[in-house]
């Protein structure tokens, strides 16, 4: 079994209560940080570890923290992104349910590193039970003196507030999230300025994913070198891969970065359900270009997946067998983005709707000869032309599905039927 970082101690159990967490050495890393290290030393250690953001973009965490300006008298904020809404992704939930205090400990260390005395934890509204778990964890952390004034007599103060969202994928995008946190609709902001300079309430702000922060206490406990050694160069550590779809054992598996996709599917997730043939895999949530069965020897780290034209994204691995109709799957993805576009940018607002409408008619057997070219053209115009990357996220799957499964799309257009269904009969 590979070494566990985030799921260590909780592989088949839960450590909901602080007493249980303390029994396995919980909050010891925090103690060391607050009593022995300066904030800059924490940032340096995280930089050295090669930790990259687990929310989707894979930005180096230590570097992100170092962008917070030092000599401003404005308050600084840490905002935790627990919006987890990318289709195919359900891994932050596992951390919250099994080890909420590990996240709390990471939050205090991260806040200390960037000089924040206030942190907001933004959780999607649907995660009601998970919000209750976090509420309790926050309360317990206050009671034990890991939050509040003068934490562990270090002179450092921190308040953490839970903030529930109300259903909007775009609020997972960091500046959409900030708008939402300010009580507005989640319209992403034009960047620059970046949140590190002008973020929440106009103040310097770091936004980090749940898994990113839950990793930090382990780095401080075992050291950057240990963490870096678990992954591949520039891709330190492990990652939670949420494997779903046509596999025997869907589930969230913590594995070292760089593990081949084939091993994830066939060793850990138990291989293909009912021994059907593997057809395609989405490697990191619905926004990522699709991979064919021939591409699963790719190493699952940020750089290797990017090198073959897709993305590691949120770590949501969606596995499809020979019976999955690519037109239907893509249509569902297109519907999602059309529903979730916030509507600020014309290419995204109009483009997502057109993609959905055209794919709907192709799916319904009413496709026109030029439809596939239209889809490619619309997708082309949606990439790199908007305020936030949701537009790209909607366009990239369209391009990759059609490029890699063009025959199947053509069959729908010309034969007005689905050839996958024909294979089945």
């Amino acid at each position, binding site marked *: 079994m590979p070494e566990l970082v985030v799921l260590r101690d909780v592989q088949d159990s839960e450590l909901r209560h602080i007493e249980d967490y303390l029994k396995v050495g919980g909050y010891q890393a925090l103690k060391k940080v607050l009593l022995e290290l300066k904030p800059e030393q924490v940032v340096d250690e995280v930089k050295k570890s090669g930790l990259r953001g687990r929310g989707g973009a894979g930005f180096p965490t230590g570097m992100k923290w170092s962008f917070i300006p030092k000599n401003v008298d404005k308050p600084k904020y840490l905002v935790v992104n627990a919006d*987890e*809404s*990318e*289709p*195919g*992704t*359900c891994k*932050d*939930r596992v951390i919250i349910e099994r080890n909420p205090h590990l996240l709390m400990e990471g939050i205090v260390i991260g806040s200390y590193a960037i000089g924040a005395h206030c942190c907001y934890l933004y959780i*999607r*509204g*649907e*995660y*009601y*039970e998970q919000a209750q778990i976090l509420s309790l964890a926050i309360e317990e952390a206050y009671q034990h003196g890991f939050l509040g004034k003068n934490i562990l007599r270090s002179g450092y103060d921190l308040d953490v*507030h839970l*903030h*529930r*969202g*109300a*259903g*909007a*994928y775009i609020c997972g995008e960091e500046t959409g999230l900030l708008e*939402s*946190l*300010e*009580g*507005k*609709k*989640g319209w992403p902001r034009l960047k620059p300025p970046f949140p590190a300079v002008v973020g929440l*309430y106009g103040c310097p702000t770091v936004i980090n994913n749940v898994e990113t922060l839950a990793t930090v206490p382990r780095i401080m406990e075992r050291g950057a070198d240990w963490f870096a050694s678990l992954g591949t160069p520039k891709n330190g550590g492990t990652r939670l891969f*949420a*494997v*779903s*779809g*046509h596999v025997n054992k*869907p*589930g*969230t598996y913590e594995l070292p970065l760089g593990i081949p996709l084939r091993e994830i599917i066939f060793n850990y997730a138990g291989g293909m359900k009912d021994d059907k043939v593997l057809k395609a895999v*989405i490697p990191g949530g*619905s926004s990522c270009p699709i991979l064919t069965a021939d591409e699963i020897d790719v190493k699952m780290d940020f750089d290797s997946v990017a090198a073959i034209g897709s993305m590691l994204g949120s770590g*949501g691995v*969606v596995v*499809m067998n020979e019976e*999955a109709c690519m037109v*239907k*799957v893509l249509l*569902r*993805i297109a519907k*999602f983005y059309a*529903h*979730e576009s*916030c509507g600020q940018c014309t290419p995204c607002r109009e483009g997502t709707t057109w993609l959905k409408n055209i794919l709907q008619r192709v799916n319904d057997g009413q496709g026109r000869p030029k439809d596939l070219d239209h889809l490619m053209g619309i997708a082309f115009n949606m990439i790199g032309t908007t305020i936030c990357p949701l537009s790209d996220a909607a366009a990239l799957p369209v391009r990759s599905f059609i490029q890699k499964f063009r025959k199947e799309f053509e069959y729908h257009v010309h034969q007005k039927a689905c050839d996958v269904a024909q294979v089945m009969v």
Partner: protein
Amino acid sequence: MLSESLLEKYRDLTSRYPTKRSALIPILLTTQEEMGYLTPESVRFISDYLKIPEIQVYEVITFYSMLRTTPVGKYHIQVCTNISCLLLGGEEIFEHISKRLGIKEGETTPDNLFSLVEVECLGACCNAPAMQINYKYHEDLSVQKVDKILDQLKQQG
């Protein structure tokens, strides 16, 4: 009009932020949880309470899929049909519930017991197909499992 306990929650929520407006969405959610939906009166009250124009409160309500200005059934069934669920029969689950209850997407049964909507990914992809009834997750669904759940809720009334 609003209960004292709800007002107490408003005070607690606004105390967490440097601007009152930040409490808007949590306040709307809390209100909806207590009253079932956001009535014109409650919206007016919240707008007044937070000093935000009513139109801006509506702007926020209509942006977020969980906020609503009309009532739903006592059991609000939200079925995910996004990719991981789609691959394992999420659409069939939706169709089955729709047929069994005799209602379409967005509708409520005449006895106001059940309402049905199709939703985006619920973050339960590894236990697909999944749905939420009010806030409770139901995962690894099959038609049989759904029938059992609905039978039980019907009996509870």
